[in-house]
């Protein structure tokens, strides 16, 4: 058993394995310190007020140029334990995690599905973009992740969210069709956001994640209205969970990939391990930590045929 584990580690896992893998994709494995980031809640406060309040506590606040309502913060204490946080004036959210909602661009009056909602960062962000008007249906499969989601919704005071505890792959049971869908899929994560990542991940786990993602993507896309938009994102750098899933959904037909129009990140890979992929996959955005200073991330914008 032990020998098998060692063998597996040397073949399909470990720092050296992933270093070579990323280099073959045109990337790098470089440990970068991530900046602390928050997202202001415009339903509860305004930029100048929040800045003033945080600066009076000794926090340095800097606008993230490519994120609406996003700020980098530097301070000597946790921003998760002060009154401004408890009152829902902001959400502590890593920079790249703020991008998918921006790409989805929900508008007031939309009916939006947040397919894997907990802990609720993007759910509350969706409502903020909608000005609190319209409805977000948030679903979460795991019961132990529900309290965190419900608490964040309470804290951020989002008026138009309905929550169901269910598997996103069974979302058809809701009998609803959506203008927009956010699928921030469960994924294997990335080394920049998790110090232990290189010790615990291997290709088998990544392939398992990719299979789960395809199952959820295949089911949720059926729930889009014609001409509706689905944004798919992961915090993974692995092509199996990103570009290869996009290739899979494009081959099934009925959707096109649109540009994400973000001011950050690289284009999606159109050649992966020697395999040529659909050229529109370049419309996706891939964040390599060494280039963006964020965690690893991938975002794609799919539009359903009219």
């Amino acid at each position: 058993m032990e020998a098998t584990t060692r063998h597996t580690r040397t073949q399909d896992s470990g720092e050296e394995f992933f270093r070579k893998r990323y280099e073959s994709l045109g990337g790098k494995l470089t440990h970068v310190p991530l900046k602390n980031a928050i997202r202001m809640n415009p339903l509860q406060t305004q930029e100048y007020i929040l800045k003033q309040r945080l600066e009076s506590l000794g926090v340095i606040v800097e606008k993230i140029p490519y994120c609406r309502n996003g700020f980098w913060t530097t301070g000597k204490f946790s921003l998760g334990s002060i009154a401004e946080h408890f009152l829902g004036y902001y959400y502590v959210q890593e920079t790249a995690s703020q991008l998918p909602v921006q790409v989805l661009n929900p508008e007031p009056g939309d009916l939006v599905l947040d397919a894997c909602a907990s802990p609720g960062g993007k759910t509350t962000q969706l409502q903020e973009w909608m000005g609190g008007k319209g409805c977000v249906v948030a679903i979460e499969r795991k019961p132990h992740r529900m309290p965190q989601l419900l608490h964040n919704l309470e804290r951020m005071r989002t008026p138009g969210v309905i929550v169901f505890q269910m598997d996103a792959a069974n979302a058809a049971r809701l009998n609803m069709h959506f203008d927009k869908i956010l699928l921030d899929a469960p994924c294997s994560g990335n080394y920049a956001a998790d110090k232990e990542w290189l010790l615990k991940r291997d290709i088998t786990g990544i392939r398992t994640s990719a299979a789960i993602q395809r199952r959820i993507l295949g089911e949720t896309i059926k729930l889009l209205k014609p001409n509706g938009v689905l944004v798919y994102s992961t915090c993974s750098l692995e092509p199996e969970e990103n570009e290869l899933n996009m290739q899979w959904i494009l081959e099934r037909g009925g959707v096109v990939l649109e540009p994400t129009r973000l001011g950050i990140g690289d284009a999606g890979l159109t050649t992966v391990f020697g395999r040529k992929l659909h050229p529109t996959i370049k419309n996706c955005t891939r964040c390599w930590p060494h280039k963006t200073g964020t965690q690893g991330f991938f975002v794609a914008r799919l539009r359903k045929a009219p």
Partner: protein
Amino acid sequence: MLWKFIRIFTQAPIIDEHTVLKLGSGYYLVDEKLRRMVVGTNMTCAAAGILLGREFGTGFLPSTYLLTLLCNKAEFKVTLNEKGAWLFICARDIFSESIIEVTGKPSVRDLVLVMNAKQECLGIGSVEQKLQARGLVIKNVYDIGWFVRKKAKPIRID
């Protein structure tokens, strides 16, 4: 239980009862469209709209939103200085030196809303002795930092 809780602080109508939806142990503020969606689905809904509060055993756990609605109408309020406000959301009790303003004339054992200098409600306290006395005068009954400590303190509704 929601209405009983509100009446502890004010007799004034602060919420239209037709906008309140009960889901499990929670009370939610919803508009008509959201209510129709919840009622129209055949699935069990875990939450909808803005949480007002939750039944918790024999007690009630108010939301920060409900406290904000209450603070405009509540009979009794105390406002704390910066240090007192910080300590209060860390579950500490209130010493008379921290109080910078009192609204109304609360008696011993009355519940009061606890505010910071920016008039944001931080929670609820129970008056332990006359507010002019020295030392601990108000006990922390509930504060908005409870979730971080993962220790809910529901308010008893008799």
